[in-house]
């Protein structure tokens, strides 16, 4: 038998073969008061975020902030540098607001997109080439046509209770994902 202290689990997974059952199962566990839930799916499943209680809007906020920073930077850069090195042409003002709006728009876009995608990667802790999920049996099917509900192990994780809760959902299979490969 394995020694539980040496083989700490990362998560316990329940496998489903269609997304609606996954969402229903996620709802059920959430209602039973389980925290630290997650899922592994081949595509973003509709309604799953609500079921799992995910409401992370950091990407959206970062996109907005990035856009504002880009816009301010772009306009300040153009105005400042035009004053620093004045190029008088055609009797037009040095701070020519309409002419500056093109670059302001472009850098707004650039700032927004870089901040949004950067936040996606940082908050999801990506890139990460080594993760317990990669060693889990059958979990690679979640890139195909299986949908896995996960109870992630925390400090108060009770393997038996989690196992019972998942078994009650009537999944195709239940798998334990160890923290260390080969454990």
């Amino acid at each position, binding site marked *: 038998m394995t020694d539980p202290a040496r083989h700490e689990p990362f998560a316990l997974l329940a496998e489903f073969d*269609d997304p609606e059952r996954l969402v229903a199962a996620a709802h059920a566990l959430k209602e039973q008061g389980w925290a630290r839930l997650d899922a592994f799916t081949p595509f973003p499943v509709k309604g799953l975020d609500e079921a799992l209680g995910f409401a992370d809007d950091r990407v959206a906020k970062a*996109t907005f902030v990035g856009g504002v920073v880009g816009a301010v930077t772009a306009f300040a850069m153009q105005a400042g540098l035009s004053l620093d*090195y004045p190029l008088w042409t055609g009797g037009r003002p040095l701070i020519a607001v309409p002419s500056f709006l093109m670059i302001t728009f472009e850098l707004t876009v650039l700032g927004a997109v870089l901040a949004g995608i950067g936040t996606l990667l940082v908050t999801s802790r990506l890139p990460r*080439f080594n993760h317990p999920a990669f060693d889990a049996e059958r979990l690679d099917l979640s890139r195909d046509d299986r949908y896995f509900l996960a109870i992630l192990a925390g400090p108060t994780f009770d393997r038996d209770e989690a196992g019972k809760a998942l078994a009650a959902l009537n999944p195709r299979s239940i798998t334990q994902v160890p923290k260390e490969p080969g454990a």
Partner: protein
Amino acid sequence: MTAASDKRAAQWVLALPTRFPAPTAWLVSMGVALSLLALFLVSVGVLFAQGPGVWGNNIPVGWGFPIINYVWWLGIGHAGTLISAMLLLLGQDWRNTLNRFAEAMTLFAVTCAGLYPILHLGRPWRFYWMAPYVSTMGVWPQFRSPLTWDFFAVLTYLIVSTLFWYIGIIPDLAAARDRATRRRWQVLFGLGALGWRGQASHWQRWQQAYRLTAAIAVPLVVSVHSEISLLFAAGPIPGWASTVFPPYFVLGAAFSGFAVVSMLTVWLRWMLGLHALVTPRHLDMLGRLTLATGLMTAYGYVAEVFAAAWAGRHEMATLTARVTGPYAWSWWGAVLLNFVPLQLLWSQRARTRPLVLLLVGACATVGMWLERFMLVVTSLHHDWLASSAHRYVPTFWDWSLFAGTIGLFLTLFLLFVRLLPVISAFEVREEAVEGGGD
């Protein structure tokens, strides 16, 4: 098509790179592409050794092929972003079979476009002078110039479209990584997938990022090609200084791009046997998009003629020179190739015939090139001073570099087709499961 067959098709797409179905057709295409790429390298070598004097550019036609081809390539690129981003936001799920390779087309077309202004500089190793950077010279770019706007627009567009394409392909790279059995494919896909594991908390943020980027990419396309048009329209040159230019350029760009997407779709469908995924419905939709943007471009032509007739004098003289002058072939060629074959696409039977779509696409691609030639050359070659009238004749090195950039495009595109999933498998699957009522 049934949901089950869509799911099988999605798996099949992921297996494409590892079990490539058309090695011979690919090798032959790659042979052509690499020959043209060699021509590109030779042309660039000659250009660097001898300077832009090897081209037909002169005074007053200082722009010539580099700007014609720059606008042409960039315009083609825009269709990929529009198909992917605009149709995503509109909830048009059929885009899922086209968006991946259409966006790849965007990246490679923008690469070709971006090279042209740099090569045009004469001292291309100093292209970074366009950027505002701190230097001992103490000078800064002229921010009121469309040339400087252009630098920022194209750079932003290249970065944003690369990122949009890349975060779109990450989930498929992860799926391909897990399916691959050979070590080298596992490593290639694994590195590209950044450790994606389809976790729901990641998907939630991914969806926000993907949709927001799409929402931003659509106005970005409009802004980028509007800025290109301002290279022309912001000056006082007859035939260029017109307020119709920004929308006219954006729509013309979309038109030429949809024409090229149609051609690539028909080609890939044939080469890779994608008939289960790229159905007559997709061809139909591409035909409609090409027809719609083509007609809008035609409106641009009418508006241009109207503006010239209304302005009179120099504008009218330029219009007359375009229609009857030494470059009349480019004006009439553009009108005929762009809008006459296009009328076939009113018929649904014609739209769903791959060969018809391919030929109409080819006509529009050539026609839109002629349009850019006409716009650049006719307005420049004959001014109202005797000193600034000079015929423009492209040289061998003009043509060879142009053919070379087509080689560069094809090489990059064929590598993409060979190495990466050409169709967004996870979105096809999503559509099959959630849209198809599994």
